[in-house]
């Protein structure tokens, strides 16, 4: 199950991680963008974390829906609709069916990623957050098909895949988003959205790894 408690804990973990990784993320959107990605994401994380009282007693789908709408109205920019879509699509899916098996959870995550992809229309290799989300989702799905439960190996593999996808954006040309206008000048710079997604995925994985001990 995905419980509301888990969602709230994950939000807190992500919020903390985003705050503690300011130095890693902050300059990336200045190098190949307009310099606002970090503060957009930070604002969204803070807004989501502040919702705890109003979410605590809601069902997971209602919580995810509210979080998605709050992120939509607080992040802004390209990140806002994309990050919000992740939550909004998962809210719709979880309302129909609570995930039971690990494979169900991977499917829920994939639905969220599909939501982002539907909104942003980006594939792998375009130098966006999809270069983290799509491979991570694919790996999660694959591992979930051969494992019954989440374990440290799976979490570490997911972390590694997120890291790998983030680093892979460095030498890509951008064909989506603001950096698409830079041509070759985007090469050598990690995509900010990919970085923040990697940080967020690591935060949730670390939270689960901590709980496993």
């Amino acid at each position, binding site marked *: 199950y995905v419980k509301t408690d888990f969602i709230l804990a994950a939000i807190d973990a992500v919020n903390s991680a985003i705050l503690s990784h300011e130095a890693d993320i902050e300059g990336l959107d200045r190098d190949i963008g307009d310099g606002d990605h970090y503060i957009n994401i930070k604002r969204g994380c803070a807004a989501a974390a502040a919702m705890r009282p109003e979410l605590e007693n809601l069902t997971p789908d209602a919580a995810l829906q509210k979080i998605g709408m709050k992120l939509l109205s607080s992040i802004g920019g*390209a990140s806002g609709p994309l990050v919000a879509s992740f939550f909004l699509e998962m809210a719709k899916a979880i309302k129909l069916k609570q995930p039971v098996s690990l494979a169900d959870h991977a499917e829920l995550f994939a639905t969220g990623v599909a939501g982002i992809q539907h909104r942003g229309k980006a594939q792998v290799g375009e130098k966006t957050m999809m270069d983290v989300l799509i491979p991570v989702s694919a790996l999660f799905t694959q591992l979930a098909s051969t494992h019954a439960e989440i374990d440290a190996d799976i979490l570490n593999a997911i972390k590694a895949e997120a890291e790998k996808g983030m680093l892979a954006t460095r030498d890509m040309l951008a064909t989506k988003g603001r950096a698409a206008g830079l041509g070759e000048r985007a090469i050598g710079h990690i995509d900010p959205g990919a970085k923040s997604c990697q940080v967020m995925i690591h935060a949730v994985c670390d939270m689960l790894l901590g709980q496993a001990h």
Partner: protein
Amino acid sequence: MKKFMNQPDTMLTESLQGFAAAHADLVTLQLEPNYLVRAKKAQNKVAVISGGGSGHEPLHSGLLGYGMLDAVCPGFVFTSPSPDQMLAAAEAVECGKGVLFIVKNYAGDVMNFEMAAEMLSCESATVLTSDDVAVENSTYTTGRRGVAGTVIVEKVVGSLAETGADLATCKALGDRVNRRTASMGVALTSCTVPAAGKPTFELGEQELEMGVGIHGEPGRRREAMRPADEIVADLVKAILHDLAPAAGSEILLLVNGFAATPLMELYLLYNSAARLLQSHGLIISRSLVGNYTTALDMAGASITVCLLDDEIKQHWDSPVHTAALRWGM
């Protein structure tokens, strides 16, 4: 970073409140969600709504008023506004003929306005502005950026909407004007986002950024500083390569400052561009010079050429009363 401000996180709100107070006869500001509407709501027309990240003033709040926009949704600095702003604005100004969004072509602006349109209960349409020729338009990218030409689209569409034209007609004219408009800019300095505290990029004393964006994005290339005529020649060449106007065509020439370039230099650029365009056999029938689509505190300017025809001229000339453009009333 030296700016007139109190706190970085109240800067935008204080500025919006100052704008609304200075133009209380013209606009009304709503907060949370943030949007502005005309002080006097129009009736029986398509509601024309625009918006975008703040930092481009007077775009778009300075274009709110009779003959132009019905509502404006300002985002954080360089950050697209969110759908809740557009929904609240639409609810405030829609008056039976639907909503026309005028949206600058950036991923964030497009997606946020798109989601707003999906959530709207009334009918809506969207005009994307994409006049910037700095970035090659290819199938592998998301299209050209919307820059100073947006002002022209908003004037012409706003004028048509004032006549009671329907949504499809307004959109069609907006798209048509957009296709006939081309711009390119050059920066002599970068800009400093308040929350960042330092310039987005560094330009040396002998460098300029050709094809720069209006959010401090780098452009086509960093180049050596050159005399104005040479810079203008490059900008005009790119614009004419795109528009390929026939000799004898009438054009509107807009020389737009990015904020920190003095008017004296903008008119010098106009002089250079006008002579060059005229040497190509083009007739400059309309002109606009000043800071209309800025990039925070950037020194630089852009040139915009719009291919005119009788319909576009008529709607450019029609009365307008906004903070930034006013004539005929």
